[in-house]
């Protein structure tokens, strides 16, 4: 089982789509949206814990893709990584903004209904999710927790050390070990990731 049902030509297709977007092709942006909306929305909803905020940021992300597609360079990274990194940084920005406003995001995301229609995409997402879940399950609990606090809560190493009442050096070691282990576990599947 490979990490990614959709193989490398899908990745190539995404590179082409991004180039087309850079040239002002609206249809290409719509296709990118259709490919990535579920994974990106899932990530945004997880970080923001609010369906409304996640939809708002998702819109921001694709507007930024529209404006910045010319900055994408396939020699320097994968479309998937570029998009996820963009979405995550937007979400963390929003999270900080919301925290600054003392507005506690509430649960909406958790009980929101979903209307996934594309069975193939559904299966692919389920598979990726399963692979990641298994990999994470193999990490020691404290490493997993450290990675999640950094990735989904946007905390820095010092902030994690404070939150977990753990020495900073320990947090650094756990984060690094966790990432190394995760990369090993995902292995070759990373290459077909999309």
């Amino acid at each position, binding site marked *: 089982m490979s990490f990614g049902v959709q193989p490398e030509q899908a990745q190539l297709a995404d590179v082409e789509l991004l180039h087309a977007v850079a040239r002002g092709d*609206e249809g290409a942006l719509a296709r990118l949206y259709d490919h990535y909306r579920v994974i990106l929305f899932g*990530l945004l909803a*997880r970080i923001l814990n609010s369906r409304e905020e996640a939809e708002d940021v998702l819109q921001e992300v694709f*507007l930024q893709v529209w404006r910045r597609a*010319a*900055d994408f360079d396939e020699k*320097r990274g994968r479309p998937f*990584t570029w998009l996820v990194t963009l979405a*995550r940084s937007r979400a963390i920005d929003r999270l900080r903004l919301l925290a600054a406003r003392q507005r506690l995001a509430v649960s909406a995301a958790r009980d929101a209904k979903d209307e996934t229609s594309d069975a193939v995409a559904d299966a692919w997402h389920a598979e990726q999710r399963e692979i990641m879940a298994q990999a994470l399950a193999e990490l020691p609990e404290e490493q997993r927790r450290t990675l999640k606090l950094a*990735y989904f809560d946007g905390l820095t190493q010092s902030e994690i050390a404070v939150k977990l009442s753990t020495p900073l050096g320990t947090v650094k070691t756990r984060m690094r070990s966790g990432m190394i282990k995760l990369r090993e576990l995902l292995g070759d599947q990373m290459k077909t990731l999309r």
Partner: protein
Amino acid sequence: MVHEDYNEMLPAQALNALDAEDARAAEAHLQTCAECRALLREWEDTAAALAFAALQEKPLEPSPRVRERILEAIRVDARESGHGGRSDANQAERANVISLPQKRQTRWTAAQTWGAIAAGLVFLALLASLFVLWRENRQARQELARLANQVQDAERQLISQREAIEVVAAPGARVAELTGTSVMPNAHATIAYDRSGRAVLLAKGMPPPPAGKAYQLWFLAGGKALPGKVFSTDASGAGTLSDQLPAEALKAVGFAITLEPESGVQSPTLPIYLSSGS
């Protein structure tokens, strides 16, 4: 720090979890180290894969309205900029890496724009009311100063009147009348003085002296005019003066008033304005 230290920081860098100081140091090193840049890209792929950990068993779908809104927005954007995505492909070395501090949205939402306009209006209103307060305050101060002057004048008048009464009431007090000469026929003054020589003059019908000038009192004794003090009169033509008679004028004295420079002089300038007649 050496290359290996930065190397160890890369996984955390890919998670954007470095503290500010470490992040700056790592960024600086990445500018100069191609090997670390390549490694960072791999770590970023691993970090991006964590997005799958956010998927729920039945993945969430955004509302279809989001897709509509995005497509609508890019059409507006395309119209405004003449084209779609930016083509100024200014590809910085690490253009694909989006780090958190760089992501600052500079476009204002409608709410922010209205908020800014409202804030501007509030500021202007505050400025205006501040100006009104300042002006009112200034007027109040001027009024206060005017009243204080009036009180001072009244006090001065009261003091000289009291002195006049004291002088007149003192044993052996004498009073002399001064009448206007042809130069100032309507002028009239009364001077009262006691044995010690304390004298008080009350004048009427004397227009205020011109700028730089004052009326001066003279004591006429032994064929000489001895200088007294200078005084002024108000708009109603009234003025008062307290003075002291020179010793040689105590026994027999006449009085005269002339117009002189406001600092006073030692011998009178003609004509005489008022005199005690004799």
